């Protein structure tokens, strides 16, 4: 059973990492704890669901979800976040409250448009589950792990290997000076939101497929769990996010399998977080410096 549980844990962990990837990116670049990213996750799931129910094509559903939500992301950053963070002397809580407002807004908008009841994709993967010894991994899960790995790699590559990534980090450090170096902050931030919200949408759609249920409040739990994950991962660090997601997935699974119901599942993430941070206040993975 242990090996199966470890596999379960890693799988769940990849869902968490996937879910938190967009928020990690946005935090890494803009230092905004963007709770509304969980709203994008739900919006993305609905967009994916809509496309799938019209076309029955899952690939199209993914692309549409990411594009649609990414565009919303651009609008949101252009008309809301950007003006806010470019004001002088705004405190860090302001964007956070904004994102809470946005999150409330999107959740309820979804409820009004689509109703409070669950929607489903009823999509079955044609591929069979893989069995290795007595460990069983379903096709959906393999797909999730691949998706997480891909997004992680894309993000890692952009952040560390491209000029855009450098510009993002510089903008986070000092927007004013970044501008004078030639960074068009409108474009670079818009891009960060396209990706940040696009990733969230991919996660939302994927989770919608996985659990076969899409509903307006589906972002509620990710909204805070992803905060725990990005902080545990060392804030704004994609590798950290993957590691943290898996650590949390594993902890939850193993606790639930071997200790039963000693605490609510969602709390495990925070218990792990608090313990890790007390020992290592800068998170699991920190950027190397000399």
């Amino acid at each position: 059973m242990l090996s199966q549980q470890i596999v379960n844990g890693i799988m769940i962990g990849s869902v968490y990492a996937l879910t938190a990837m967009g928020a990690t990116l946005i935090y890494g670049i803009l230092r905004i704890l963007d709770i509304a990213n969980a709203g994008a996750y739900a919006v993305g799931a609905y967009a994916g669901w809509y496309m799938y129910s019209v076309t029955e094509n899952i690939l199209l559903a993914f692309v549409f979800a990411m594009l649609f939500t990414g565009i919303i992301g651009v609008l949101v950053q252009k008309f809301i976040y950007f003006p806010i963070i470019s004001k002088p002397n705004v405190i860090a809580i302001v964007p956070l409250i904004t994102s809470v407002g946005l999150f409330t807004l999107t959740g309820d908008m979804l409820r009004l448009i689509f109703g409070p009841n669950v929607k489903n994709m009823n999509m079955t993967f044609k591929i069979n589950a893989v069995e290795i010894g007595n460990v069983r991994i379903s096709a959906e899960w393999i797909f999730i792990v691949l998706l997480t790995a891909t997004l992680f790699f894309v993000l890692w590559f952009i952040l560390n290997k491209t000029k855009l990534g450098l510009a993002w980090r510089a903008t986070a450090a000092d927007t004013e000076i970044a501008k004078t170096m030639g960074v068009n902050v409108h474009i670079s931030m818009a891009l960060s939101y396209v990706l940040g919200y696009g990733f969230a949408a991919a996660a939302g759609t994927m989770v919608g497929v996985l659990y076969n249920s899409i509903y307006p409040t589906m972002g509620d739990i990710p909204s805070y769990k992803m905060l725990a994950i990005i902080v545990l991962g060392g804030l704004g660090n994609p590798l950290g996010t993957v590691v943290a997601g898996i650590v949390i997935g594993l902890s939850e699974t193993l606790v639930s399998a071997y200790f039963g119901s000693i605490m609510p599942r969602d709390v495990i993430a925070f218990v792990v977080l608090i313990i890790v941070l007390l020992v290592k206040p800068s998170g699991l993975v920190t950027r190397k410096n000399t």
Partner: protein
Amino acid sequence: ASEQPAEEPPAEEPQAEEPQAEEPPAEEEPKEPIRIGFFAPLTGPAAADGLSTSNSAELAVEIINESGGIDGRPVELVSYDDGLDTKQAVSIAQRLTTRDDVVAVVSGSYSGPTRVAAPIFQDAGIPMISGYAIHPDVTDSGDFIFSQSFPGQVQGKAGGVVAVDMLDAKRISIIAVDIDFGKTLAAAFKDYVVPKGAEIVSEDYFGMGDSEFAPIVTKLKDEIKPDLIYMANYYGHGAEIVRQLKSQGFDVQVLGTEGIDSYQFFEIAGEDAEGVMITTNMNRDSEDQATQEYIKTYTEKFGIVPDMVGASVYDAFQVLFKAIGEVGTDPELIRDTIKDLKGFKTVTGELIEYAPTREAIKPVQIQIIEDGAYHYYEEIDDLEIITPEPR
């Protein structure tokens, strides 16, 4: 569907159109409406249940008004959204009792809001019937407070009957949601099955928002190997559990509760739902005309199939209509009438009477899922089992 603003007066036309037998011709002024309060979580995490109940409330009022109201007086619904927040429930209760001039109230909400509102109605001397709140303290608030569903304790016991007496389960695993609903049901279930010689081989509790059950299912499949799983949880959880069972290839009898009595359970679980049994209060295969009529009109009007919470709230209204029809709008008389109500037909079966704790005594339905729908399996009407124990 509940775009209707909270206090919009109900449509008045039906009254004019319907030929009204016992009434003198239509020259008379329209009579003062009877106002009935209602609250439910229309926003927030429980919005789906809120919608079901408010649909039912609307439907109940519409139907009674179409048939000429009560005593010729139209019924007006004063409906509020509590957002599943106790603070709001308190203000709503205050508003209903001091401003809105309602003669009685139905709660379409969960235990928390219903529980905090109850003492306010009690103090104001206005009867409240809770549709489906399970918390035992709700009716403890006083003699004006009733519960339309059987208490968790009864349903848990009934689940026990199904598990050990009907299905002869020996090794049972419990998976329950960690709120009053799941805890109460699981406890009552245990209390019944353990003395009967069944063994509870595992108990797992999880949070309301949880959707990941692979670890539990793996554990049950590889290690515990129960011959029955008792699920005291809601449709989202239940559906995911049966899907996981299927995906991990674990074939075991699942017994659920009214929590998964919702069409949404099939929506999510699809074929994996087949064979699952539940304890609930509505018999979908009932020959009772009112029940079939309710299912039909509800489905036509709202485009979705009614569920247990909706049906319970609908019944709560039927009880109130009946009482008001008999004794008018005096709250104390209404209370007394409800208290003495016996053998009243509702869409969730016959309401035998209210227990001294003012919780409904009615048969428990056992339904089984076959061909993507709930069907009759058995009914438990043994009074020993369905009468709540005094507290």
